[in-house]
């Protein structure tokens, strides 16, 4: 019997397609279904050519096949507006939902920080925060696991070409959600998030700056070690996650400067912000699969 968990991707756009390409290399997740609503869409055609079953009528077209195809995990790369319904329909059938939209019905998941805990509890819906959150929260957590962080602030700079109309129309959602996750997952008592969109050509690589204020004098050696360890953890699923400078210490302020280069699967390499979302989403599902295969957790019975 294959140890791989069978998966469906909802939303055949840039994110969904990039996810599919990454998934084809996965030892733990097997892509079976691509779910869309427009039969003519490039994304669905591509998925069909890549051998996937395709629904052109949204999640409703997938639901009748969930049990016979043993779909265990679904990735939602649509929008916050439809995610709740998608999640309800699939959770009911025992499908674990990895939410790449800003809906955040389930708990935030940043793999190197809290994925193991979510997997152990068999959370049926986990939310991948935002691109800026995935790129920066591991660094906030790297500081807060050494000593209490009074305030954590992240600045994500992304290329104009890498952010779509959905993010642009509701950019407040990015700043609010990310700031919330800096607190809840990063462990900062208060969080703030800033996003800058840069139109330079050729497009710039995603850059992230993380500032933390520690409550007491920072233990420089321990924080430096913790940051380097955490970078390695993230590099396991995003090899282009790079510490450019830091940690730099100035009084109680700790600053870390990162660059995120994507794998260039479907999305260009500069779009590290999108790549880190798809990679984190896949990593999340893989952890559930690994834990299930090792008998640590039990998936919903069928």
């Amino acid at each position: 019997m294959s140890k791989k968990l069978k998966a469906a991707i909802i939303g055949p756009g840039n994110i969904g397609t990039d996810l599919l390409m990454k998934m084809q290399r996965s030892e733990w997740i097997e892509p079976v279904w691509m779910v869309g609503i427009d039969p003519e869409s490039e994304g669905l055609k591509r998925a069909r050519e890549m051998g996937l079953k395709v629904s052109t009528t949204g999640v409703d077209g997938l639901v009748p096949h969930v049990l016979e195809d043993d779909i265990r995990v679904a990735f939602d790369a649509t929008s916050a507006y439809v995610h709740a319904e998608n999640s309800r329909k699939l959770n009911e059938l025992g499908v674990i939902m990895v939410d790449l939209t800003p809906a955040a019905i389930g708990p935030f998941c940043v793999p190197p920080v809290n994925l193991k805990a979510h997997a152990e509890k068999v959370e049926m819906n986990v939310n991948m925060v935002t691109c800026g959150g995935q790129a920066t929260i591991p660094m906030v957590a790297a500081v807060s696991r050494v000593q209490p962080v009074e305030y954590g602030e992240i600045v994500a700079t992304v290329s104009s070409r890498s952010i779509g109309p959905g993010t642009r129309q509701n950019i407040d959602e990015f700043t609010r959600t990310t700031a919330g996750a800096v607190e809840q997952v990063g462990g900062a008592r208060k969080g703030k998030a800033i996003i800058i969109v840069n139109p330079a050509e050729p497009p710039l690589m995603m850059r992230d700056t993380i500032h933390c204020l520690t409550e007491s004098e920072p233990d420089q050696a321990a924080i430096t070690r913790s940051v380097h360890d955490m970078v390695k953890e993230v590099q396991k699923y995003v090899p282009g996650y790079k510490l450019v400078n830091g940690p730099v210490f100035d009084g109680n302020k700790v600053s870390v400067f990162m660059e995120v280069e994507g794998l260039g699967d479907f999305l260009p390499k500069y779009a590290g912000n999108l790549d880190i979302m798809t990679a984190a989403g896949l990593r999340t599902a893989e952890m559930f699969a690994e834990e299930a295969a090792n008998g640590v957790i039990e998936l919903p019975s069928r």
Partner: protein
Amino acid sequence: MDIKGKNVTLHDMSLRDGMHAKRHMISLDEMVNIATGLDEAGMPLIEVTHGDGLGGSSLNYGFPAHSDEEYLSAVIPKMKNARVSALLLPGIGTVDHLKMAKDLGVSTIRVATHCTEADVSEQHIGMAAKMEMDTVGFLMMAHMVSPEKILEQARLMESYGANCIYCTDSAGYMLPDEVTEKIGLLRSELNANTEVGFHGHHNMGMAIANSLAAIDAGARRIDGSVAGLGAGAGNTPLEVFVAVLDRMGVNSGVDLYKIMDVAEDRVVPMMDQPIRVDRDALTLGYAGVYSSFLLFAKRAEAKYGIQARDLLVELGRRGTVGGQEDMIEDLALTMAKEKGLI
């Protein structure tokens, strides 16, 4: 140039753009003192916010001496005629900040984006317009793109509900012909009832000349700052500009002697450093770099031994935009490593 008989609305920036020059540390007393002086001088609009707009309070841009709420609550009740505006940069501030400003009596909201990214302002401009505020779309770093691109982005902001569009020379890079071309195109192509404004910086010594060119090309709102207190080499110095407008027969409604006195007696004494075109401020204009990078680059020079000028030129080459202050220390660290200084 004949602009005689035209009417312009001047908009003072000393208590917002000036926050950059003061590292966001203006006291409440200083704010109230300057704002009341400006009000008595007949200044119609005064901007009061963190230098980086509502919600700008941060490690990245600097924590201010007081919150936006405290500044606005201190200044607005003291105004007899002047109205108070606030700046908001989507990605930094949110509609929650906007509502707070409106509740405190802010009449004019200015939603600022980089000149190619107007579509991040839809929710903020839409909300301000819905609340019937005087709603301004503020296109920053406007020197970086063509007049046609500025117009395309201005039309987006207009469609979201902005009743005034600014062409903003955040780097103090523009020369008068460019101002004429950009403002002229906005004026001829936007709705007739959409106002056009210009915001200059004095990094190339062109702020007065550029502001005159803007009026000549159809702008009716001009930003400036009493005593020039603002980022880089400062904004268009308003007491000078009022004198020039007087000589040219343009109506601003501002009393020249009174604004001269505010500049000399209230603003200059609180400056941390003279606001002038020093070599670093000149580099901002010459290389086309966001004016508030100035003090960050000077601090990085002091800390890491890399010349501010070299940092600014490289930041210009990389096409950095407003808000990327974090890149300054990052770049200084990288350059210092390359030179073996750290």
